[in-house]
């Protein structure tokens, strides 16, 4: 069961059980959670439930809605998330998500290593918005929840991981550049900001530089001749590029360096 614990300046005001598909929060009294405060818009935010997943959504409020101190327009809620509306804090608590996480952690072994199969018969009832019978809940929830909770957790971890270390374009503080050394285009530079950058003449000789989390790699793609790096012929395998390596292909010399 999911609920919201509402506090103001660290003082507990009330608890609200999320027992409907959609609940609204705002200053107007007709909201499910009315909060009479000028910093809060008439219809400020809503919480929607889709198949045991909870979303919080800002309804175009004047002062905005924060989740874990980040402004959001729409956000999938996870146990422990803190929604901030004006000076009010609403902590999202999902006992099932928490419980199954502990369970999954304790047992370690998962029955389904792969996506669990959802029996087609179960879906129409769940999609039509009818309230599932307790009998059906008993069937569907144990099947879906542990995996779902685990997935949510891995998805969140992955998100943190990509935010902090990976995203190839921003996080790598230096990026590679190739500068042409001879011919009519001499001294022209090519920034290697994409995952893949191709070099050479199509149909004659083509090589590609791939950008990976741990560096840049040069690979031969097409043509009878292989490119050279510092005068050495490349073979069929990718070669990691070092700062100031000199690449030669199709008669063009270029230098790779990190900016």
């Amino acid at each position, binding site marked *: 069961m999911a609920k919201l614990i509402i506090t103001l300046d660290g003082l507990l005001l009330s608890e609200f059980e999320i027992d409907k598909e959609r609940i609204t929060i705002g200053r107007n009294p007709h909201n499910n959670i009315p909060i009479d405060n000028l910093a809060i818009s008439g219809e400020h935010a809503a919480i929607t439930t889709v198949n045991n*997943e909870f979303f919080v959504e800002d309804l175009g409020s004047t002062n905005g809605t924060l989740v874990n101190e980040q402004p959001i327009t729409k956000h999938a809620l996870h146990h422990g998330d803190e929604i901030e509306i004006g000076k009010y804090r609403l902590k999202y608590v999902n006992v099932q998500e928490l419980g199954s996480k502990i369970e999954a952690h304790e047992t370690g072994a998962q029955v389904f290593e792969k996506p669990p199969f959802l029996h087609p018969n179960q879906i129409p009832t769940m999609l039509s918005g009818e309230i599932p019978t307790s009998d059906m809940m008993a069937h569907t929830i144990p099947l879906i929840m542990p995996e779902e909770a685990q997935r949510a957790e891995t998805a969140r971890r*992955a998100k943190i991981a990509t935010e902090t270390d990976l995203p190839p374009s921003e996080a790598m503080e230096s990026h590679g550049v190739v500068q042409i050394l001879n011919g009519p285009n001499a001294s022209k530079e090519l920034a290697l900001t994409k995952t893949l950058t191709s070099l050479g003449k199509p149909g004659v000789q083509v090589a590609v530089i791939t950008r990976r989390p741990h560096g840049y790699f040069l690979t031969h793609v097409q043509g009878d001749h292989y490119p050279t790096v510092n005068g050495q012929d490349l073979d069929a395998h990718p070669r990691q590029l070092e700062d100031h390596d000199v690449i030669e292909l199709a008669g063009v010399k270029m230098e790779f360096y990190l900016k």
Partner: protein
Amino acid sequence: MDLRLALEIVSLTDPGKVRSQNEDSITTDNQAGFAILADGMGGYNAGEVASGITVTLLADGLKKALHARPPEQDQCLLVKSEIEKTNGAIYQTAQSQPQFSGMGTTLVCALFHDNRVIVAHVGDSRLYRYRQKGIEHAQFEQITRDHSLLQEQIDSGMLSREEALLSSNKNLVTRALGVDPMVNVEVQEHDALPGDIYLLCSDGLNDMVDDEKILLTLSVLGTNIKLAAQQLVQMANDNGGRDNVSVILVRVLRHFPARRGFFAWLSAWLKK
């Protein structure tokens, strides 16, 4: 007929960075002109068994049917009935052997015939088409629509595409092979043109690598599809490799009209 001169096919499968087992199975045949990819599910090694049986039985079935078929039989029906037979066999195995109970698999299959491609799928394994339009422009399209809870929620308007990206039950499939005695196979037929590249993949690829990066890979490495396949798997693993990842790339090199039967030839000749 022999399609070896018309099709170039490469395939690659990898357990990924997290899982120890590979429950994906793939097989290709560029003589008969088909590619099959299955992503198995079920505890212990049942997923591997389900996907393994599927590709083996379906490949055998297709080869026999293509060889024996009377010339005018509809290829779509042929593929559909072979998949239904395969489903029956996996379902029987799952029912009769307790260690395999509850196993199932997704499937995507492409059969190339007479300048066309017949695409059949069950579950969330996908087929994409990369098609060159002019010199600078290319079109990249997802041909199959996932049979997944998420896709149904999007279709029914319960979730927007933005919400779908946030959803945590991306991988619940609503159709699979081997879980029921009957299976609802989706079959489509499209023209295949020289230069087209078809990508069959398991969700281990499209969950980890966005479509834009897949398109970039195919446009840069389309002339060397072996390298393109390696690059796709590598990107999935570089992004975390949370699932098994499998890719099959099929490049159409030239037109492949079917050789007509003797009677078709004779009637054409008599009309002259």
